[in-house]
């Protein structure tokens, strides 16, 4: 069998697609970030970006948000996935419920969580109705950056854990029961079985889920805009700001390259940390 050429043939459709629809426009945009109007290479746009007073804040906020959201999502999804595998009846129903947020766009999620946290929202209604608070609180006020951050993190965890869950559940389904049973025979507790058998065998799925989540977390925008207003600048928001409000596509492209850069970096780090040794697959 022509094994040498075959993998490339299999990749061809996706590569053509990516080449035309992604690489071509990407190169054009990336060029904007590093060239001036006369077509000369320049670092001016990057200096302008780095020199802008919001850059550091936006960069940090994006990282913090990712750091706050993704690990919780991974743990939560793992927990949900193992609950599901431990279920005897009703698996389908619970899984369906837990994957509902999958179908909810970030715009819709923003609307939903704003209706909870805004001053006249459901949370305040609850607190006031039950006499816990006398006055509705302004959870999303500019001086409560912590609360805003928390609200955004909650909304993101709510919205995007389902992606991780689906990938992990599918991955767990592929782990043969025998391994669990073998470990049980050797006296491993439930927790040990999870950490010593399930987790290592789940590595490829964990890797996939983690990479996708981290990349998507760097691109979060709609939920932050809905809940944070202008209080929590993030990189993706700055891309919009420079592209459509400040009308400086060069600096917007520079911001986009920063997002791309940290995404690739994180991807490589995750790929390396969660690499599966050759031959250690199921």
């Amino acid at each position, binding site marked *: 069998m022509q094994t040498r050429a075959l993998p490339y043939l299999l990749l061809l459709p996706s590569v*053509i697609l990516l080449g035309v629809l992604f690489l071509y426009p990407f190169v054009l945009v990336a060029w904007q970030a590093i060239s001036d109007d006369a077509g000369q290479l320049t670092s001016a746009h990057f200096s302008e970006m780095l020199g802008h*007073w919001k850059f550091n804040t936006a960069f940090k906020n994006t990282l913090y948000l990712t750091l706050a959201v993704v690990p919780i999502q991974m743990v939560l999804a793992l927990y949900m996935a193992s609950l599901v595998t431990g279920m005897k009846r009703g698996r389908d129903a619970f899984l369906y419920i837990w994957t509902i947020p999958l179908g909810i766009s970030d715009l819709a999620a923003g609307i939903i969580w*704003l209706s909870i946290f*805004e*001053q*006249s929202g459901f949370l305040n209604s609850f607190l006031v109705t039950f006499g816990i608070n*006398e*006055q*509705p609180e*302004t959870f*999303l*006020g*500019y*001086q*409560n950056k912590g609360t805003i951050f928390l609200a955004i993190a909650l909304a993101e965890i709510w919205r995007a854990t389902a992606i991780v869950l689906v990938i992990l559940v599918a991955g767990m389904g592929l782990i043969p029961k025998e391994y669990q049973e073998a470990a049980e025979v050797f006296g491993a507790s439930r927790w040990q079985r999870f950490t010593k058998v399930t987790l290592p065998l789940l590595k490829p799925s964990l890797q996939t889920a983690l990479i996708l989540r981290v990349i998507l977390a760097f691109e979060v925008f709609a939920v932050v*805009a809905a*809940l*944070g*207003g*202008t*209080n929590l600048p993030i990189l993706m*928001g700055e891309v*919009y700001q420079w*592209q*459509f*409000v*400040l*009308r*400086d596509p060069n600096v917007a492209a520079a911001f986009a390259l920063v997002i791309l850069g940290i995404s690739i970096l994180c991807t490589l780090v995750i790929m390396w940390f969660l690499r599966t040794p050759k031959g250690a697959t199921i």
Partner: protein
Amino acid sequence: MMKKTALAAALTLGTAVTGIQTANAEVLFWSTQAAPIEEAQAMREKVLSGFEGEVDFQPSETGPWITRIQAEATAGSGKIGLIGSLHGNMIDLSDNLADLSDIDTTGVNGTFLELGKLGTDQQKYIPWMQATYIMAANKKALEHLPEGADVMSLSYDELIAWAKNMADATGSPKFGFPAGPKGLKHRFFQGYLYPSYTNSMVTKFRSAEAEGAWNAFKDLWQYTNPGSTGFSFMQEQLLTEEVWVAFDHTARLADAFNQRPDDFIGFPAPAGPTGRGFMPVVVGVAIPNTAPDMDEAKALLAYMTKPETQIETLRATSFFPVVDVELPDDMPASVQLSGAAIAAMSGSDDANPGLLPVGLGDLGGKFNAVYVDAFERIVLGGQDVREVLDDQADSLRKIMEEANAPCWAPDAASDGACPVD
């Protein structure tokens, strides 16, 4: 070769899937205004149905709106016949817009027409509709007015005192300001705060008077609902009563006025030491060079400025006409409430009307950012007023010099770039 075949196949499929592309005589009206679907519906059914040709009204968010227009301009061909948006969005599209000088513009506000030239000698856009910032209050708030203050001729100091009274009385700040991501707060600083305190928008950006203006605003901010940084359309918070008194432009207050006309009043923006600064919001319509049917587009454009169309537009969008028209009596509550406020504002003794920035080209966005950044640093960030103003003044000066834009009202006319003292 291979690619070509694939492309041909793709095109065929595209045709198959979409059932494509009859050469349509419809004019595609691509607009950022009247985007909420109930407004869009009114535009289609009430405003545009009177046009003898076919119109396809497609509202869009600013991002896709700009992207699409730029794409068509770059590609050199397009579907869009007519574009409609805020003055600020038109500025850097200037090169792609057809000259509209041959359109009959009798009756259209001359100042706005001048704005529509975008600093060129061609008519780049024709004014379509206008709004202005006014204030709105829940009637419950009126009892907290400081003594002796007349709501129809309020000063900034009285507004601050009023906001304080409300906060003290209710336990939570009841003044609201649209400082959210889509709020148009830069226009407040440019057209209201600065003119009212410095009688200038650019020249006295870092003056002592400006410092006073910012300090006054900081005072007001103490009694401003802290959620304001998330507010973009004050009608929502007025309706939920998260705020009782708010500042926003007429179209963004309309929903509150219309839903509960008896609960709200509209009144003029406050006055400062140098008068009652205010500024219009102008929405224009223009035709891109790539319009498929230029004549039909121009016919539609002319239709848009007809008095009857303008009145229907007002009903649909709560934006006011740019031509002189007699408004009928059966206008919605929002028109009556905000109309009264606008009349009181422009008719007041201390009225100090300003103009939208002109001649900035594609630096308009950055010009606005100077004011917004100053706000975020001074008011939200708590940074030192003097330092921030000095810092932002440098950026402002650079922008004015790069654009080489002369001063506009209320700044006195200048030779060459408008100076920042």
